[in-house]
């Protein structure tokens, strides 16, 4: 099919020397993907879901937590405010998975690839758009969550005087907030790569959620310290979420930015594998 399209384009280019690369550049790919995302309501609702679910759970978490005077509260207030990320990431994953899998389930992928024979370009355009959209939604979600923590937690006993900080003027909180926004984007990219490999939405969502939630559960049960250390350092959620830690940093198995870097490696590897699968397989 791609060969046919290429052939016809060559013919057209010969007869009409006017813009020969029209419709195959990165900008065109982005424009096409943006149109596809913009013109259905699903992605908008899912992005809204990321924001609402993240902030909602965050508010519930900080609202339910109190630190009465005179008690020890080993709480990381910033991390607590960002609890909703655990839920928001599932919605971001759905968005990313559907961006690809919906095309396969409707057969749209053949049209897309006919129009855009450079398949890695299609995946790159999708990746840029999904990451960008999730970035915007995540920024709103994280801002809302941190703001909720900043407003609610001091009234619940987590005051700055007692050493609890959650605000955008406190360095570690800013790092956690910025990092969490990047975290959600990376989770979306990881999901996109897996979806490009798997192609079926159900199996992709299952695989992504398994990857996100199973490792923390295994970590909770494993008593072997060597494996605990490995799981903390090398699995996407355990390593990636260290970016939210603002207390007890010396006891982390991996430093926050390195942890986010591990997640970035996972996302890059998934995208690479997804790109290869897209390139080598028939659509």
């Amino acid at each position: 099919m791609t060969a046919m399209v290429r052939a016809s384009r060559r013919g057209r280019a010969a007869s009409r020397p006017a813009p020969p690369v029209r419709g195959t550049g990165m900008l065109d790919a982005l424009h096409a993907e943006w149109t596809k995302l913009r013109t259905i309501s699903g992605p908008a609702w899912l992005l809204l879901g990321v924001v609402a679910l993240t902030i909602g759970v965050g508010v519930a978490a900080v609202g339910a937590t109190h630190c009465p005077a005179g008690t020890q509260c080993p709480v990381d207030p910033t991390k607590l405010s960002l609890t909703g990320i655990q839920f928001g990431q599932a919605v971001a994953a759905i968005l990313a998975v559907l961006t690809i899998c919906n095309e396969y389930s409707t057969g749209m992928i053949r049209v897309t690839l006919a129009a855009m024979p450079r398949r890695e370009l299609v995946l790159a355009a999708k990746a840029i758009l999904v990451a960008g959209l999730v970035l915007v939604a995540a920024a709103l979600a994280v801002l809302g969550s941190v703001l909720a923590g900043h407003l609610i937690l001091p009234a619940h006993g987590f005051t700055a005087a007692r050493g609890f900080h959650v605000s955008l003027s406190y360095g570690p909180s800013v790092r956690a907030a910025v990092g969490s926004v990047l975290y959600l984007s990376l989770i979306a990219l990881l999901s996109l790569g897996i979806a490009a490999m798997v192609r079926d939405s159900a199996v992709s969502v299952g695989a992504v959620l398994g990857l996100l939630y199973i490792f923390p559960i295994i970590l909770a049960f494993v008593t072997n310290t060597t494996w605990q250390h490995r799981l903390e350092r090398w699995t996407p959620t355990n390593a990636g979420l260290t970016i939210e830690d603002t207390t007890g940093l010396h006891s982390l198995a991996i430093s926050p930015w390195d942890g986010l870097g591990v997640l970035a490696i996972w996302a890059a590897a998934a995208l690479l594998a997804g790109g290869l699968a897209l390139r080598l397989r028939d659509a």
Partner: protein
Amino acid sequence: MTTNTVSVPRTGTDAEPDAGRAGFGWLLRSEWTKFRTVRGWVIGMIVAAILTVFLGLFIAAGNNTACGSPGGRQLTGKACLPYIPHGPGGEVVTDSFNFAHQPLTGNGTITARLISLTGAHADITGGHAAQVGSGLVPGLAAWSKAGIIIKQNLHQGSAYAAMMATGSNGVRMQYNYTGDTAGLPGKVSGASPRWLRLTRSGDTITGYDSADGTHWTKVGTVTLSGLPSTVQVGLFATSPTYYVTNRSFGGNSNQGGPSQATGVFDDVTVSGTPAGGKWAEVAVGGGGPMGTGPGGQAGSPSGGGPSGFTAADGTYRLTGSGDIAPATPGPGSNLPTATLQQSLTGAFIGLIAIVVVAAMFFTAEYRRGLIRTTLAATPRRGQVLAAKAIVAGGVAFLVGLVASTVAIVIGDHLETENGVVVLPVPVLTEIRVVVGTAAMLAVAAVFAVALGAVLRRSAAAITIAIVTVVLPFLLAALNVFPSGVGDWLLRLTPAAGLAIEQSIPNYPQVASAINPVQAYYPLSPYAGFAVLCAWAAAALALAVYVLRRRDA
């Protein structure tokens, strides 16, 4: 709709086979055919079983005990385990306390007035930085205890009944490790002493308490079957690991350290034979006062260490450390314990695979347009849903049963070989855990089928099913929320169904963190399972409603 036009002519032309075809059995068979002929779904179920077993064994195999003195020979596995006492009921117990005892033959009574209960525990107030053993500070653990006891003999794990005052749980009558009855509330002090009495009559022991020594209240009566004619009676003191459940957010952190309790008694009388017995002190299970052992560890109770018993002018002072209680999983235990449930951790990953297949079992019909054929052949839409739920649930049950049986049998064997004490449970409990896990997976599959019917989109259905079953467990396990909120998550969400895997009861007389990783759930096994069933039933009802209302 097309359903009538298809079914009506058929009834007219060929009534005989149609009667059979319209039956529910035929519907089940057709759904089963759909299921088994999709290669991906069959593979998905097999993968679910393999992952369940593999992950369970991975965790069981990694659970190791190693020991050995510094510089000496290092031991691993079973060789590390001390003697493990079992109680009369077969459960693994902790039985170490300091015992001032004398023999009692035949029937008799012991009465004592407890005028003080004090103690000391490891200093863990410094938060994360403090190390256990850095010193002792005054204070009692919630279940520090001192009182009177009638015990079968001086061996660990033998039958007993005791009346005691506790750190912060008032007077209790406890017996045979698992029994616990509340008596007078409040703390013991010189101004507010507690009178305690135990009476033996044959195999029956009755416990009384009193605030003044004249007005006695019966707390409880127990029958210790097979009690020999000569038993040991006397005073005891012991104190379990003192620990603070620091609900650390984002990680498990239970701060704990050893503690000891000192009880001061006066007006102690033993009536019966032999009369005028002499008091002897024995640290049952090394439960004497904490000494600073050779390694400088405040943790090791000294077996032949300093005496914890003094008697002068009719006043007896007894100090001990340990516990008389069932062994429980988790940080409260001094043994490397594991529950049956730990070999079933893989059920989470099996659950995800099963949920994916079950949701697709319905949504695939919409995607391929097969739903129109299905509903044309069976116009009663509720029956279609029921047949799909039964097929998906049945397959999930069988897969879960095979996987959890294999995981438990091999996993327990591995853990036992590795020197982990897999806490024994009655056979019926073991069956409930294995069959219950399979049933939990089956109900989760039905839940996913129903969600698939309601939402028609596999991605949304699968995400909801996984997020509502797995994520509440994860958040509660990691203590992401404060304890109360985490408990409510495990009561209200479909994750409550995981409680069916709990094998060791939540003994109120043992301070343990209610954490699902240690296989403790806030709801009882069947109540939790009922919550999951209620969610599945609600989803099914909603699915029937929307299936009838909507065009396919």
